[in-house]
């Protein structure tokens, strides 16, 4: 069996501005050996979850600068649950206050990253999460 690659979908939902930040993250994850599906700008939660489902990703990463994080993250979470994607990590970052981060993490997102985060921290977090969680899933599949 070949080495199982970590697959990540990166999107920048919302109607505002540019996707420079999302692209920088995408490139860092690629440089860390991951396969990054770049979905681009203006994605709705429905599009994000559908694309993630088709690509069978381990991780969904959203970059949100528009302030719409309190609607987008919960909606993506909801759609993930509807589609049975409980083994997929939802993470992301942008201009999000510490308070909102705590609320969203409580709702079930993974770790979220505020402004000025070092991309290395995000890479490390995703790697660690996949190592821990994927092994559990694979074990379950083999056992059943």
């Amino acid at each position, binding site marked *: *069996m*070949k*080495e*199982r*690659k970590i697959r990540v979908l990166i999107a920048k939902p919302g109607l505002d501005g540019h996707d420079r930040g999302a692209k920088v993250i*995408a*490139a860092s*994850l*690629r*440089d*860390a*050996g*991951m*396969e*990054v*599906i*770049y*979905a*681009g700008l203006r994605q709705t939660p*429905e*599009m994000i979850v*559908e*694309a993630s*489902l*088709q*690509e*069978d990703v381990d991780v969904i990463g959203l970059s949100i600068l528009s302030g719409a994080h309190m609607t987008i993250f919960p909606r993506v979470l909801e759609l993930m649950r509807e*589609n*049975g*994607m409980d083994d997929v990590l939802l993470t992301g970052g942008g201009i999000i206050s510490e308070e909102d981060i705590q609320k969203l993490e409580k709702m079930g997102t993974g770790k979220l990253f505020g402004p000025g985060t070092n991309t290395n921290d995000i890479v490390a977090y995703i790697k660690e999460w996949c190592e821990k969680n994927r092994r559990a899933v694979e074990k379950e*599949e083999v056992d*059943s």
Partner: protein
Amino acid sequence: MTPNDLLKRFFGGDRRALARLISIVENEDPRADSFLNEIYDHLKGAYRIGITGPPGAGKSTIVDRLVQNCRQAGKTVGVIAVDPSSPFTGGALLGDRVRMTKTELDPDVFIRSMATRGSLGGLSKAAQDVADVMDAFGKHVIFLETVGVGQSELDIIRTADATVVVLVPESGDSVQAMKAGLMEIGDIFVLNKSDRQGADLAYLEIQSVLQLKPVRGEWRPPVLQTVADDGKGIDELFRKLQDFYHYQKERNILSQKFQERVENRVRRYLEEQILRKYWSPETEKQFQRSLKAILERKKSLRQVLKEFAP
């Protein structure tokens, strides 16, 4: 998901099961063989269309438009978009989806991005296995997008039923394409970005190059001009693809293609297996030692060759 569950859901039309099965096949997971056996009886002969051409030529934009045409004609669609893995880190940035947004939430369109993963001829195998999975799922038409450089990318395209080569007006493009072997494999040529300067000249250039190409059968590969961004020329391209399909069907060329594909896959598989078996880490070490000996002029190349294959 147990293997049986997964298959049941797959045949029930569950897109998530399709996605998972593709991963299993792509990863050469130990379960892949038995799954591929199970689905083989369900292959329905989806029409496989390869789209290739230089980086940034507009391949994804064209696929996006053609998918729309297929949907209007009532066909369900699978797309396999291949991008290169970095040989240094093994990572990949798969960006084709960005241009494939016209049918984004249509449940009968399934798009999957694949990285080349730098395997020895294994890419073509993996891509064809994934195409089989989509076929068994019930997709009528499957698009395979690859950049038209590199042997393994061209290998994938060669396995398609129809091949569309996308070129752009940039100077010397057609000459480059000829060198890369693209002129040989195209059934239909598209000059995209025809809104750009030099399009007419490039069009004539491509036509004159194609005239030099020996014709096989009665099909003369046409050249079409498109502006994929705003859809100009795409209906015409779709009609040409339909013409080509009928041309092949009437002459039994599709079953011939299928036979070629099977033959090719068996050969490639064997080659890969033999290589894998032969080229063990031990052999690699020995090879490195011999290489050094050659460079130090302690042995001749011929001697070393004989050592490896007496």
